[in-house]
């Protein structure tokens, strides 16, 4: 089973990253300093060895009084550290001299003539040893220009002091780096904590926002900080959109509650009114009919609210591609509403329908709901003996439907609100004609779902024109059944 990975905090990750980099550089510094210290210390060590060899060389002198030999090592003049070891051999293999603390080493004359370093352990101590082949001309004053004498000097000094110095230096660097690491860890943590303070303040401000208080006023510094500005803007825009949609929802719920409660109050009062006093059978019958009519109105409101809810919830989810032929829907709706029109003595006139098919991305049901809502709205606002003209035109990619009535028109102040849910421009008129205040809201929801647009233009006293623009259904979906299910 795989455990979920808990992401660490950004501060923690940053601290760990910085410390890791610091640790790596500390290791690098230690390694480099070790190399450098070793190199430089041994260089000076070698220079020193050469110097010592030179002083040994200086101690090799003519030995006139010596029968066999002509050179000798004058050790009494020699001042070398007591720990050092040396030996000097003549070319003929004769030992000229040796330090007291050493048994010596057999001379090896096959070695390269000058400057050879080697390591040696003498008396349990590490030595660095220089093998030096030197030569000296003796008896310069004699005829013949003197004699060349060759000899080999072996000089060694213990290396433990050098190593101690190298180790000391490296230890200093290592300990220094480690201390730095220990100090910078908490320091970085503290700095990060301080540096992230504006972010926490922003979060605290954002967490204060609730459905009752949408107040979000970030400090000016948050808006100006490059890292915080996008976040601040995002929070602000999300909040303002949420607030708008929340207020809209709340207004809708409140309006819906008002409508429903009022409708229930009507039914309840109609029933109770019958019991206020004794009535005749005819009065009871009339009262019951009124109650039934009131119930039907409540039913209508509920049905329309559900329709609107369905349309709006479907708008957010991908709907199945559905198309319908709007001209066909228009014909059917016309037939349906003819009775209402005759009753209200209004003439329904349809202009010439386009010759081509006008398929729109709507279900046949919604298409007819849209048409009947718009036509009913026009009918409700048309005085007797007036006419309603309907025109349908088709362009290359869209259909335009125009419904023009010659009613009393809409007040310019009211016009922007006509699509609002439960909005009724003139309640005495629309209530008397049975409007629920949802018809145009439903029409707009349908049009917007299909990706179209709806506009209402009105001239008070002359009439209202509703213009609906719907995109034509795309070609690939036109293979689907297109005749409305009547």
């Amino acid at each position: 089973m795989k455990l979920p990975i808990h992401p660490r905090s950004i501060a923690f990750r940053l601290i760990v990253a910085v410390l890791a980099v610091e640790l790596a550089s500390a290791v690098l510094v230690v390694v480099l300093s070790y190399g450098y210290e070793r190199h430089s210390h041994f260089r000076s060590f070698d220079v020193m060895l050469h110097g010592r060899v030179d002083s040994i060389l200086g101690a090799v002198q003519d030995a006139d009084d010596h029968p066999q030999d002509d050179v000798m090592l004058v050790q009494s003049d020699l001042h070398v550290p007591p720990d050092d070891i040396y030996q000097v051999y003549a070319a003929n293999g004769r030992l000229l001299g040796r330090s007291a603390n050493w048994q010596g080493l057999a001379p090896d004359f096959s070695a390269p003539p000058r400057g050879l370093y080697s390591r040696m352990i003498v008396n349990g101590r590490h030595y660095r040893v220089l093998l030096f082949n030197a030569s000296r001309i003796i008896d310069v004053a004699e005829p013949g220009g003197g004699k060349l004498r060759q000899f080999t000097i072996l000089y060694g000094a213990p290396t433990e002091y050098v190593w101690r110095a190298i180790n000391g230096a490296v230890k200093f660097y290592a300990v220094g780096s480690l201390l730095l690491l220990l100090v910078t860890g908490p320091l970085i943590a503290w700095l990060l904590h301080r540096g992230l303070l504006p972010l926490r303040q922003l979060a605290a401000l954002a967490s204060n926002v609730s459905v009752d208080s949408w107040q979000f006023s970030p400090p000016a510094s948050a808006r100006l900080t490059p890292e915080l500005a996008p976040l601040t803007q995002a929070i602000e825009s999300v909040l303002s959109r949420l607030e708008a949609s929340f207020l809209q929802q709340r207004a809708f719920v409140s309006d819906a509650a008002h409508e429903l409660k009022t409708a229930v109050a009507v039914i309840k009062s109609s029933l109770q009114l019958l019991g206020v006093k004794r009535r005749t059978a005819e009065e009871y019958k009339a009262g019951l009919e009124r109650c039934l009519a009131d119930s039907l109105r409540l039913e209508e409101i509920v049905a329309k609210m559900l329709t609107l809810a369905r349309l709006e919830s479907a708008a957010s989810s991908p709907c199945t591609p559905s198309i319908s032929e709007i001209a066909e829907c228009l014909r059917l709706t016309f037939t349906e509403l003819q009775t209402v029109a005759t009753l209200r003595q209004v003439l329904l006139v349809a202009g010439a329908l386009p010759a081509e098919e006008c398929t729109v991305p709507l279900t046949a049901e919604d298409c007819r709901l849209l048409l009947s809502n718009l036509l009913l709205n026009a009918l409700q606002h048309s005085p007797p003996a007036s006419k309603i003209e309907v025109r349908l035109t088709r362009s290359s990619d869209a259909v335009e439907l125009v419904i023009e009535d010659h009613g009393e028109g809409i007040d310019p102040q009211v016009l922007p609100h006509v699509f609002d849910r439960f909005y009724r421009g003139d309640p005495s008129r629309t209530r008397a004609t049975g409007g629920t205040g949802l018809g145009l809201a439903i029409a707009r929801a349908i049009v917007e779902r299909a990706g179209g647009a709806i506009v209402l233009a009105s001239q008070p006293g002359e009439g209202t024109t509703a213009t609906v623009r719907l995109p034509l259904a795309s070609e690939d979906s036109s293979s689907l059944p297109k005749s409305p299910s009547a």
Partner: protein
Amino acid sequence: MRVLLVEDEVRLADNLAAALREGPGFAVDWAEDGQVGYECARNRVYDLIVLDLMLPKLDGLSVLRRLRGRQDPTPVLILTAKDGADSIIQLLNAGADDYLAKPFDLGELIARAKALIRRGKGAAHPTLTAGTLEVNTLEQTVRRDGIPVELSPTEYRILEYLVHRPRVIVSKRELLEHLYDYNWEHHSNVIEAHVSNLRKKLDQAVVKTDGELPDASAETAGVIETMRGRGYRLAPELEAEHSR
């Protein structure tokens, strides 16, 4: 009593007006929006205003604030579909006398309307007494010296109004304004006829008990006094004991 009903839902207004007319026998005027409602209320002829909150043109709260801003003391009963204590507190603080949440009980509405009118006239109990006269506003019955007096609805309403207005000369015009809604054709001689009948019936009740014709003096001189050219009032001897 005359009631102003401000309600935009036609069917509800119909029912409420019918109930207030048929039940307690009030005269009811109906306004369908806040603007008209406020204009009507400015006449100050109402004994109660029943006000819906959500109204077109001018909402109920604004109507209420304007009325109270004009020092109008008429009792106001609010009809609201809004829930929540805040809304109710706001309403009462704005000067509302009572409220009912929709959907309400019609009987409760009538009872509250009566109580508000009673309170508005300074009476606490639904049974009003003035001397030997006893008016039961719930049963709409009248007794004099314990003897029931049969009155027509209009006669009863005139008496009830007069009993509610102690020490005051009530003009015919005022009676007309408070007993009839504005659909009624106003004729002051209609009032005169009703008052005349009312006085006769009330006096006859005393005759029945005493078995003799009333004297021109004393309290039997007539319960309702006619102040010539000014109006009517309950006989001062009676109204002296107006309240219990």
